């Protein structure tokens, strides 16, 4: 699972959606892998405005990443190639291969295996 995808995810339990603590989900025992893919600046440019920056900072910090800039790049900063490449690496090339995603509100944990997360809920949480 890429950090880009994780940025758009919250707890699947309906009762958690309104709770601020359900976002972002927290990685636990995460095993990371770097998988290089083509640099597509057009995509990064398009997607940055839709990223929850605070969520990304929290996740990157929990995964022990070098510091993500305090503020979301906007305007001219979006044309800086190095900034774009750094974000490409964090959002698209970093994969969580094994581990768990944990809800800060209800504590439910979603398993990640072979890079694929499972968000199916047991029936008592539906």
């Amino acid at each position: 699972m890429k950090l880009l995808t994780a940025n758009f995810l919250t707890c699947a339990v309906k009762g958690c959606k309104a709770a601020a603590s359900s976002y972002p989900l927290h990685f636990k025992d995460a095993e990371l892998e770097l998988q290089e893919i083509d640099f597509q600046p057009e995509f990064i440019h398009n997607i940055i405005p839709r990223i929850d920056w605070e969520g990304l900072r929290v996740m990157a910090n929990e995964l022990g990443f070098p510091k993500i800039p305090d503020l979301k790049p906007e305007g001219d900063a979006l044309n800086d190639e190095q900034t774009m490449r750094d974000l490409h690496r964090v959002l698209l090339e970093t994969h969580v291969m094994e581990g768990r995603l944990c809800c800060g509100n209800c504590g439910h944990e979603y398993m990640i295996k072979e890079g694929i997360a499972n968000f199916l809920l047991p029936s008592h949480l539906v």
Partner: protein
Amino acid sequence: MEYLIRFAQVHESFRQPEIQALADLAGIDLEFIYYDKYSPFCVIRVPDEAAARTLIARSILAKDIFELWGYGTNLEEVHADVRRRTTEARWADFRTDSFRFTVDSFAGKRSNDKKREIIQSFSFLGFQGPIRLKNPDQDFWVLEDYGWDVAAADAATATGAAAVTPEGRSSSSTPILRPVPEGQEPKRIWFGRWLANSSRDVINKYDLKKRRYISTTSMDAELTLITANMAHAAPGRLFYDPFVGTGSFLVAMGHFGALNFGSDIDGRSFRGKEMIERGGTMGVLANFQQYAIAGRFLDVFSSDLTNTPLRAQPFLDGIVCDPPYGVREGLRVLGRREGLRNEEVIIDGVPAHLRPGYIAPKKPYGFEAMQNDILDFAARTLVIGGRMCMWMPTANDEDLELDTPMHPNLEVLSVSVQPFYNWSRRLITYRRLPEGQVWDVSKGRSRLDSEGVYADELNSFRKKYFTKNPQYDNKEPRSGSATPAS
């Protein structure tokens, strides 16, 4: 300027919406001057040649596009129209270029002698350059439409004769179409200068027969590519398929440059046998690798759209889906059937859902309830102007317009129908409206699924499908009082 599109004579109700979607995508001002569902030829007006080339470049249902030089119901009219539309100065532009003339007859035939005669009749254009049959500088076409014999066909349908479409498929709603007998004259003739081919040859590249990972529910290459055009898949954009399966839609969007992710309630569907049994590459990713577009694949995960983990905020450029109908694939969401116990299950002191190999229980779900969930999801997650393409089935006797699912935040852009023997499926294209604009949903479906427990009670399409196709329904009746099936 007027241009002539030559379409493939397939998926007729998708042809205009596809061209319109491509015009919207490129910001081209498009007007249809002539269109007939029984004809491959269509005349449009766009500002210039560059626009015409851009418009056709991604099209799957068009074959090619021509600069229109003349039109008529016979050759004399065409000649006169050529003189009216173009000038001698224009002809002089091509005077010394190498060139070729071709006569193309739709639903009719011409002898070689007659073709030569037709070509010679254009000698007034005064081209002096060499004739070159391969890669000429200028490629001129005489395009004749003899017209399907639609009137006779309608009469035959009215008398109850079995109907066969041009593709050889039997259909209750399509009249018999036959080419006109030889020796007749065409109904319409166009003359044009060839400009550019479409992307129709891409269908072959994505042919399911040559794809690494498919299943019974994979959608064919042509329809997925058309869907990607309608959904405005393009470089830099983010797309999502909530019923990803083998990823056939994602691959088509990837072809057009979009980045994609998907989910499915059944994780086996996107993993595939290779990964599950032999620890090989995940099925959907293997398909992206096969076409050398792995950089446009983001992620897949197991989830249920009705209990989605995706945040309710606009972040998707597009959604494309072919939700389960409940015929080949069961229509299920997470949860237990009413009346079954619903508390947490503990096995050996460990919650069952934390043990390895846990499978979340699922219950049957309403066909219309599912569609409403999809529309609500789209309204929440699409960016303004973002599109959703949703396929849905319908029995052939249902009213087309009344049954289209609608949402106040989603404009219905087009509804295209692919008919089968006794059912059809429709591709509905929606656009997320800006806040403050509301789509009139009064023409939409207001009916809701009745309370039900079994698949047939929840799914009016499934019920109709099996009622009309009793040979497929081999199951014993569920009610104890019924007599066993013979």
